[in-house]
């Protein structure tokens, strides 16, 4: 198979106005991935599927990742000359990573038996701009997996034929795979009389005096 740089160059030639980035992977055995702008992702994916040299006809794995806003610390080695003596010191640089959700597609070719090409799509933020184009019209195999990402991460796939919750029940609120999700105290699906009964029961018993907390 071609290298990722060659694929990137060919995409930029064939699909106009596309911005692509190669995301490095620190694991030597893992694959680097191609970050695609959301607005052009469908065309890029269509190119990858239909191109005669690639023929990525099989979308194996689709998955979501949550990246909340965070401070990233990177250590940089710097050479400093102090009183004529060269010293190497380590400096920590803090950069702010804006929060976003990410969807990763692993594409293989069954016809030519090669792969994977890893596609990454990023949403603008984690709150209100979580729209991404659905690739289900290209690869039917992404249908349930995109539904699962919608369910567990809250990414909204525009163009998906049947975007509903899949693993959680329809009335569920929230997206449990997000890093900041807090599980409720009680998973009771149907409201039960327990709370009312307990509240009523508390009236019958004296309330324990609260221990004072020193500031």
């Amino acid at each position, binding site marked *: 198979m071609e290298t990722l740089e060659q694929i990137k160059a060919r995409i930029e030639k064939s699909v106009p106005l596309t911005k692509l980035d190669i995301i490095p992977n620190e694991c030597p055995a893992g694959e680097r991935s191609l970050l695609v702008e959301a607005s052009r992702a469908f065309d890029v994916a269509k190119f990858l599927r239909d191109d005669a040299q690639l023929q990525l006809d099989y979308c*194996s*794995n689709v998955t979501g*990742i949550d990246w909340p806003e965070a401070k990233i610390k990177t250590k940089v080695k710097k050479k400093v000359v102090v009183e004529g003596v060269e010293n190497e010191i380590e400096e920590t640089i803090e950069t702010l990573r804006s929060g976003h959700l990410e969807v990763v597609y692993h594409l293989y070719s*069954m016809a030519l038996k090669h792969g994977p090409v890893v596609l990454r799509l990023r949403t603008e933020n984690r709150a209100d701009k979580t729209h991404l184009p659905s690739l289900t019209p290209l*690869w039917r195999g992404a249908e*349930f997996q995109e539904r699962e990402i919608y369910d567990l991460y809250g990414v909204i796939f525009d163009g998906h034929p049947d975007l509903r919750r*899949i693993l959680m029940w329809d009335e569920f609120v929230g997206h449990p795979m997000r890093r900041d999700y807090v599980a409720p105290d009680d998973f009771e699906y149907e409201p039960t009389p327990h709370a009312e009964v307990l509240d009523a029961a508390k009236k019958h018993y004296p309330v324990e005096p609260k221990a004072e907390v020193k500031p």
Partner: protein
Amino acid sequence: MIAAPKSFEVVPKRDASGDAIGELLEVSFGPHHPSTHGVFRMDITLDGEKVVKLKPVFGYLHRNHEKIGENISYLASMPYTDRLDYFCSMTNNWAYALTIEKLAGLAVPERAEYIRVIMAELTRLQNHTSLIGFFVHDMGALGTPLMYAFREREKILDLFEEISGARMMCNYMRFGGVRVDVNDDWIARTKTLVANYGRFLDEFETLLNENEILLARTQGVSPLTKAQAINASITGPMLRAAGVNYDLRKVDKYGFYSRFDFKVPVGETGDLYDRYMIRVLEMRESIKILNQALAGIPAGPIMDSKAKLRGFRPKPGEVYGRVEGPKGELGFYIISDGGPNPYRYRVRPPSFINLTILEDMCLGHKVADVIVILGSVDIVLGEVDR
């Protein structure tokens, strides 16, 4: 307060102009129906006995396996992978171990790779055997074939129990090797089992291959084209029954599969009979691999000396690893941030994704065929719902 779902409802059937011309029946099939192989529900709309709409409903066994995996250490996920597809815990273990070995750059000793191949192929044998039992059971042959299948499966599970301590939840593999070594006595008994397995398959095939009911219920039912199967990301025996030669043991050549001589059986039409036959033929090939692996297993260590079980922190990076499980491509996608727990832990479950075009396969067929079609997909709900 949400009303409890009804088990069935009669709705009007309309023609193109919207006039009522009859009645359709909406049936909630499952979740507690024995033929759904677990707790799985299908909302089926029937016109007479014919299926006109089918929507699978998931999540009755959902425990958010992936979230659990992000909150516990790498090694602690290993016993959890047993519970995904509880029929094939050995291949689940292997897929996970293989992915982490790729991430951390661990090498697996030769003996351990041989043991892994033996375990994976034994798993394939028992999974396919019992699947055929269930499949025929779904067609109405209650009892006998399933019990024949379970008799053979139990012999393999005895071997697993002896080596790992558990029949089904084996928790056997580790990053960089396997947990317990096998001894010569175990290998000798496995050889005997494999030698006799061909005879059992002969018997099974004599019973089933030309059985009139099996032929009537399976031949030409729910054929799957190559293009459909590839586009819907179907993997495993279902894909090969549709005529696509794609087996990860040949494509990725993970483990030591390149050392063994075996063929990949491929079907023609992708109907239910092909899916049944592919599994029988795959078992024959597994026996070939087992014979070679059991004869050639070398002596040596079973763990990579660099592997450490405690305080395991792989370097940052991401990796996707996959193996050919008995049900299809089982993949793990792991992102490490250098900490003791994975940042992202994703399972690519084959039987969940194989259900994507269940509706397309069932449309136009009788409701009795839906059960057999679902049986041929080979699902395990522990993996579908995760």
